[in-house]
Each structure stands twice: as structure tokens, then as C-alpha cells.
């Protein structure tokens, strides 16, 4: 049943299917993918994976999945999602992963744009969404589902359960074997491998088309930099629709032969992380922030000796740990003390967090709080930042072991050329840049210059030593009426360094002052309120408490003091602020599925509040709006208080700290 591998071996691994076959012959018994299911980690070796992929490919082909056709994936990282992706690639089909928490309406446009003929859906919930769209997507002819729970009554002819598909494939395998083999051999690196839909932070989402060659090139480049090989282990826990996840958990194992592990469920992530002990990790800053918060609360609840030891070790670690990791010289006494802290604090903490074996951990997707970065490096975890966009095949810059600096995202990754346009826009050229926007040659032309440079839409600068610094999205940049250049992100990042602030939205472009909306972190502010013996009934009540306003006011005053210390930024001090009554939530359309702000939507939804802030009023009424199922909404009526922030003279910086 296995596809004969010897014939493919001579060819270079220019497609994922060829790489899979070459691994299967090189390391038949090495683990390719593990999945925790019903309490046990179950393993598929490269040989088993390749056999299963061959069967699924045969069955999908019999069910009409053609070369160049699109297959949509909606589901979490599970073994079966992975095998169907491999099978689709073996047939030369194009994978289109979508965010599994997207609503049916959000899935409509990708399904229609790609004219997808096949869908892989994780469970009943996802199948229901697809079935709902079926009348408007006549091209869909086959829906494969993984979990059969609740699926007994479904009689739609398009539906087929994964085990049934596998059986079909095994039955037709005799006949299908050569066909599948031929399909793999026909593929080249120029074939389209995947379409990723952009997060939609900037208007409607676009389909970004990537070839096998581009994704493999990026994965190879990253693997080379960190010396990844078949002994590495990674955990797949981010949405498969995010290109970063796809590169780390799909492309990377295909290139290096490393093992990928699927956690049992989203809720068991941290315990699964500890059980697996990955050597390689990618996560958005929020995951690392959650880890720091977990450690903080556990230490708070521990005995006095542990607390004293922890504080001493962490302050030492913060000055020494990062330097040790970077191989920089350290005073011998500190080095010895740091060595003593290893078995006492650093080692146990790394173990509890599941980071004992991590050789390289990366964070991307949003700017990380420098405190968090320092925390992990103090523990001896090699946490680094990288930068990339969906269009650039993700890896553009990566911090190197010896030069990790907060505020910078590192120099260009191997094979990437960086440059900055006269308007300070960052331009990228590499083999990993996307092929085109799906069915949108005009947008493609605007984004890619004739000589292959991609306009990232990000404003930034490159230092003499090649370190890249990102400031903001070009379209979010503006100027205050007095001419001071204004980028909302630099202010929001500073605000989000406070554990009490979950999200912040800064306004200022074309206005006379800077005003912000603050989305407090209900858990930490709630915990703070409990300690202060402030009683409250819930989030909405919490946001109206004067004590909470004072707390947020302090956070803002601190940020203003920091801004005042910098001559260029002193004019950007926050003048007024308001605390949002409800959380910013992707389900309300104000965030993207990767939790990035959708500024135009937020400005629209909270218009009465923003207008009131600039009119100098002290209250604003928000009214709940309902614009149908797919429009953004304000959750409930609320009377919001607007407050003035404490500001500082550019010179008056000492007293504020």
C-alpha cells in the first residue's frame, strides 16, 4: 500500500508530498506526528503517515479532488487534519485553512472565492456551518469530517467520515497506487500549495497564494538558522489558518523530519506542553504572557522562603540570564550565583512551564512586552522575536541567539533582502514572498513591485547592524494637528505592559491630542479589586468603579511620564481616556481572529464615545446596536465616564517615575 519511495528519492524535495515520501524511506520508524487522545499520546511514524496519506489521497481522488482544486480545512490541529492536508498535497490540490472559530458567514467568501470542491471539517459544529452555506457554494461536492459525535442523523450525500474515507482508500489502493504516485511525481515547487486568508485587520480579507517552493524555502531558512533536525519536537496549538502555525507545524516537520504533537484540547495546552517538552516553540505573546501570569500567581500563593528565593533569583536572572544565553561575558561571581539558582528556581520553573527542552522559542504576531521577554531569558529559555506577514511566507527577520534586543525583531533571515522605502515602509524580497492575491491581480500589482519587492505596509527602520525595528502599520500612521507624527501602536504597547490592560486603542491622527480607550483585563483587575476589598458584581460594574478609574489613570500617568522623557514623543502624551464597559472580542467584529485591532470598526462602533472624548465631555452614552448576524455590535447600553489623564512637562520626568 505504501507508495514506492525509491523512484521519488532521486528527485529533490521540492513539494511537501515528495518530502513526506523521502522521510518515510529515510526514517520509517521515527515519530512523525503524535496526538493525545483519551489520555494517551498516540504516535504515527513517517512510514505509517505515508501509508495513511496514500490511502486518503486515493479516496479523495476517487471522490473528485483534482490537481489545482481547493480543499478547505476548518478544525483544530489533529492528526487527521494533518493527514488530509498531506493527501491533498500529494494530489496537487491547494489547501485553504480557515479559522475554526469563524462564523458561517465569515467562511462564505473564502469558500466562494476558491470555488473549493472539498472540505475537511473537524466536528458537527463545523459541518453545520458548511451545510448552512452549501446552497450558496454549489462547488462543494465532498465534506470529510473527523469526530462522528452527533453525526449519526446526517444524511447529506456529500458527507463522509474519516474512517470511512480511509477504508475507501484502502480498498481502491490497488488501483489507485500508481495514480497517486504519478500525481506526486507530477508536482513541482512552482505548484500552488496553500491559500491563507489575511486577518482582515486592514479591510476585507484577501487570499494569499503560496507555492510549495516558497513555503519550503522559508521553512529551510528557519531550520538552518536554528539547526533544526529530525530530533526536534514541536507542539501544534495555534489556529491552522495562521501562516505561522502552518510553517512551524506543517512545513517545518516536512523539511526537517521533526515530530509534531497535537494537544488533547485547547484547555489542556499547558499540561500537554509539560508532558511533551518541545524543543522548538512558536507562540503569540499572549501565550507567554499567560505563562508569566501563572507563575506570578503561584508564587504569590507560596511560602515566604520560596517568595524571597524567587525574587532574588529573578532579579539576578534578569541581569545575567540573557547574557549567558547570548554567550556574552558575565562577571564570574554572578555566573556562579546564576549556576546555583539553576536547580533552585530556574530549572523547576522551566520544568513546570514545559520549557525544559526548548532550544529556540519564538514569539510573533504582535509586539511582545519587553518584561515578558526578559522573564523567559532570565530563566534560561531562549525566547526570541521574529517578524513576518502572511504575504512574506512568515519568516522575514529572526533574532539571533547572540543579539536579542527588546524593541527590535532581529536582522533578516537567510535568503531575505530587506530595504526601506522613502516613506519608511519596509520592503521584503525573498523566495518566500507570495505568488499573488487570489483573483485580485490589481491588489497583487500594488503590493509587489516589478522587481519582486513586497510592500509590507509596515513602517520601520533598519539599524546599521541590520536589526529591524517595526513602528506601526503605514495606514495607521498619522499626525496630530500640531504636526507631531503619531503611531497608535507605540502608545498601545506601552499601555499593554501593565497587567491590568488587556487591549488599548489610541486615537490621534488628524486630532489635536491623543485619547485612548482602555479594555481592562477582567481577571487581573478583578483580583486587584478583591485584594483592595472593592466589591463588584461583574465586568461592567468593575469598569465603572472610581477606584478602577484611578488604577487605569496611574497606568496612563506612568506611560505619559515615559513619553515625556523622550523629546520626540513628549507631544504624544495621552490627554483623556475611558474604560470600555465590555471586552473587545473577535465575535463582535472589533478584533481579527488573531486578536489584532480592527481600527476602522472600533472607531465606528465607539464613535459616540470617541466624539465625546474630543468634545471635552465627561460622560458618553453607548447604545447597543444590532446590525444583523455579521455586523459589529456594541454588546449592551452603557454610560461611560471619560477622564482626564495626568500629563508631564517634557523636562519634568524625574518626579513622575
Amino acid at each position, binding site marked *: 500500500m505504501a507508495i514506492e519511495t525509491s523512484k521519488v528519492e532521486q528527485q529533490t524535495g521540492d513539494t511537501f508530498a515528495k518530502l513526506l515520501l523521502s522521510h518515510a524511506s529515510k526514517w520509517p520508524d521515527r515519530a512523525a506526528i503524535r496526538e493525545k*487522545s*483519551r*489520555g*494517551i499520546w498516540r504516535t504515527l511514524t513517517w512510514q505509517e503517515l505515508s501509508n495513511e496519506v496514500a490511502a486518503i489521497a486515493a479516496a479523495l481522488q476517487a471522490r473528485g479532488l483534482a490537481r489545482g482544486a481547493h480543499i478547505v480545512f476548518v478544525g483544530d490541529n489533529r492528526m487527521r487534519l494533518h493527514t488530509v492536508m498531506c493527501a491533498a498535497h500529494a494530489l496537487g490540490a491547494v489547501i485553504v485553512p480557515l479559522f475554526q472559530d469563524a462564523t458561517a458567514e465569515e467562511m462564505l467568501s473564502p469558500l466562494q472565492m476558491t470555488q473549493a470542491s472539498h472540505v475537511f471539517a473537524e466536528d*458537527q459544529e463545523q459541518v*453545520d456551518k458548511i*451545510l*448552512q452555506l452549501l446552497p450558496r457554494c454549489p462547488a462543494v461536492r465532498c465534506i470529510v469530517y473527523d469526530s462522528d*459525535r*452527533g453525526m*449519526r*442523523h*446526517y*444524511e447529506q450525500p456529500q458527507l463522509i467520515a474519516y474512517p470511512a474515507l480511509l477504508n475507501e482508500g484502502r480498498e481502491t489502493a490497488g488501483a489507485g497506487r500508481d495514480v497517486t504516485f504519478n500525481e506526486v511525481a507530477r508536482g513541482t515547487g512552482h505548484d500552488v500549495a496553500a491559500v491563507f486568508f489575511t486577518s482582515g485587520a486592514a479591510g476585507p480579507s484577501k487570499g494569499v497564494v503560496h507555492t510549495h517552493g516558497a513555503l519550503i524555502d522559508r521553512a529551510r531558512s528557519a531550520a538552518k538558522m536554528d539547526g533544526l533536525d529530525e530530533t526536534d519536537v514541536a507542539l501544534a496549538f495555534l489556529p491552522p489558518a495562521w501562516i505561522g502555525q502552518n510553517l512551524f507545524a506543517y512545513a517545518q516537520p516536512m523539511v526537517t523530519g521533526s515530530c509534531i504533537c497535537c494537544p*488533547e*484540547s485547547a*484547555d*489542556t495546552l499547558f*499540561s500537554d506542553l509539560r508532558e511533551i517538552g518541545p524543543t522548538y516553540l512558536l507562540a503569540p505573546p499572549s501565550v507567554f504572557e499567560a505563562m508569566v501570569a501563572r507563575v506570578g500567581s503561584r508564587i504569590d500563593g507560596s511560602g515566604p522562603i520560596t517568595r524571597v528565593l524567587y525574587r532574588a533569583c529573578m532579579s539576578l536572572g534578569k541581569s545575567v540570564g540573557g547574557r549567558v544565553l547570548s554567550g556574552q561575558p558575565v562577571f564570574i561571581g554572578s555566573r556562579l550565583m546564576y549556576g546555583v539558582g539553576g536547580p533552585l528556581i530556574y530549572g523547576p520553573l522551566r520544568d513546570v512551564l514545559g520549557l525544559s527542552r526548548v532550544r529556540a522559542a519564538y514569539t510573533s504576531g504582535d509586539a511582545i512586552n519587553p518584561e515578558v521577554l526578559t522573564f523567559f531569558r532570565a530563566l534560561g529559555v531562549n525566547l526570541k522575536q521574529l517578524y513576518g506577514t502572511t504575504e512574506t511566507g512568515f519568516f522575514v527577520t529572526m533574532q539571533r541567539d547572540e543579539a536579542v534586543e527588546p524593541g527590535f525583531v532581529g536582522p533578516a533571515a537567510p535568503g531575505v533582502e530587506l530595504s526601506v522605502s522613502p516613506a519608511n515602509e519596509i520592503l521584503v524580497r525573498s523566495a518566500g514572498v507570495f505568488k499573488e492575491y487570489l483573483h485580485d491581480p490589481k491588489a497583487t500589482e500594488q503590493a509587489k513591485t516589478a522587481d519582486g519587492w513586497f510592500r509590507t505596509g509596515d513602517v520601520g527602520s533598519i539599524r546599521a547592524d541590520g536589526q529591524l525595528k517595526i513602528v506601526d502599520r503605514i495606514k495607521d500612521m498619522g499626525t496630530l494637528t500640531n504636526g507631531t507624527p503619531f503611531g497608535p501602536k507605540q502608545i498601545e504597547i506601552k499601555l499593554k505592559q501593565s497587567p491590568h490592560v488587556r487591549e488599548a486603542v489610541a486615537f490621534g491622527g488628524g486630532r489635536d491630542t491623543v485619547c485612548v480607550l482602555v479594555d481592562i483585563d477582567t481577571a487581573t483587575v478583578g483580583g486587584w479589586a478583591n485584594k483592595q476589598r472593592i466589591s463588584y458584581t461583574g465586568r461592567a460594574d468593575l469598569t465603572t468603579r472610581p477606584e478602577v478609574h484611578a488604577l487605569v489613570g496611574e497606568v496612563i500617568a506612568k506611560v505619559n511620564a515615559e513619553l515625556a522623557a523622550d523629546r520626540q514623543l513628549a507631544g504624544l502624551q495621552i490627554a483623556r481616556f475611558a474604560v470600555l464597559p465590555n471586552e473587545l472580542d473577535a465575535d463582535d467584529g472589533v478584533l481579527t481572529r488573531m486578536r489584532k485591532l480592527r481600527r476602522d470598526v472600533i472607531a465606528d462602533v465607539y464613535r459616540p464615545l470617541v466624539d465625546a472624548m474630543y468634545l471635552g465631555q465627561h460622560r458618553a452614552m453607548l447604545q447597543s446596536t444590532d446590525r444583523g448576524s455579521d455586523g459589529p455590535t456594541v454588546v449592551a447600553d452603557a454610560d461611560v465616564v471619560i477622564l482626564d489623564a495626568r500629563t508631564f512637562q517634557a523636562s519634568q520626568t524625574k518626579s513622575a517615575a
Partner: protein
Amino acid sequence: MMDMTPFSTSTRGFAIGEPILELKDISLRFGGVNALTKISFDVREHEVRAIIGPNGAGKSSMLNVINGVYRPQEGSIIYKGQRLSGMTPPRAARMGIARTFQNIALFKGMTVLDNLMAGRYLHTNANFLEVALQMPRARREETRNREAVEEIIEFLEVQQIRKTPVARLPYGLQKRVELGRALAAEPKILLLDEPMAGMNIEEKQDMCRFILDVNDHYGTTVVLIEHDMGVVMDISDRVVVLDYGKKIGDGTPDEVRSNQDVINAYLGVAH
């Protein structure tokens, strides 16, 4: 979203079958108090049967009669065509009748996993010595029981609390674990005593979904007592209404809802 699912009772996993449990003229007295008076109804295989009624109507007594906690002075219970007498809770359990309690009855200091494993007691044949010495039969059984329990853990989506002591869990989750403990015995009939009491709306919705899923996936016959009329009407196939120990209504939710006696009992009537 719920109403968009192409789910209807006509296409359920297991079609409702013949009566599996019949109660005939059951009367239960405590001294001079008539807790139940001549109550008759039946429970069909694979159905969700609710017993409702105001406080003190005799609902919990009815459940306790079914699984042998109380022995009625009059009347008979027929289970799978067989007339039962001298019913006791252990006997009921062995016959495939499992239950949950109004006030949660779990081992609070034990983990979720251990509580569910305890629910597998009936499926353990190895004796004390075999288990203590880890003899082959005991180990085989342990493995089989753990597999069954892991299936329930996945089914009830409690993977993340597998190793958490029950006492540390919020109330709604404890209720779910108790349902799991009852399911671990692989019962034919599941008796649920106010499974949704004290829950918030979200927890109630979750619990409803799990009860329907259990019925649909395992074909388990469910008999439940519930205060919340809305919940009962949504998930039950048929409803028995008790008031002051007497049966005042029996039928589909719609029939019961339009029954004048039931309306009077619930809303009160001018005397």
C-alpha cells in the same frame, strides 16, 4: 445557532422502543403521610422521560422507589417484562439503573479520574488479592476500565480536569462529573435527580446538551426530575406531572402544557 441544526427527534440515534420500565399503582407512605398515591406510568426504551411537579410533590420519592431506596407499600415495578420485588440500590445498579443525586454524591478528595473509575466498580471482577498483587486479570480489567472512563472524559469534555480533586471544581462541573460517574457503569436507565438545580443559564445549556448527547450516542434511557419547566419541555419526550403525591398529568410536553390540572398546580388556583 441551535435551531439551525438539521436535528429532529424523528432522526435520533435510537428510535424510542417498547416500555422498559412500568410502574403500576405505586403507593408509598411514611407513617400517616401519603408520599405517593397509586401512581402508574411507564418509561420506554431510549426515551427522555421527565418527572415534574411543585416542591413536595413526591418526585424524589418516585426516583427512590425506582432504584430501591424506598420500598412502596403497594404496587409493582416491572423492569424488562419482569416483576421486581425486594429491590435494593445495589440490585438496581447491577440491573443497569444508575443515578445522580440532588446534592452531589462524589468522593470530594479524589480526582475526577478516580471518581469515574469508582463508577466502574460493577465492571470489575477481580478480587481484592488479585488487585493488590496486580495479577493479570486485575491489570486487564484496569486497562479496560480506564479506556471506558477515558471515553467518558472525552465525551463530557473534562480532559483538562482529569487529575483535579473534585472538591476544587465549580458546582456545574461537579454535576457533570457526577453524570460521568453514573455513565461509567454503562447503565440502561439513567436516573437524574435535578441535574440542573443551582446552575446558571450557560451551565444548564451545557448539561442539556450532554443529557441529549448521552441519550443519542449511547441510547441510554433517561428519567429526570427537574424544576425548570423550560428545560424539561425542551429535552423530554414525555412528562409525568406529580402534585401532592398524585399523578395529575402524563404525556408529551405540549399535552402537559395545555393540561388544566397542571396549570392549576403550577400557577395556583382560587379555592
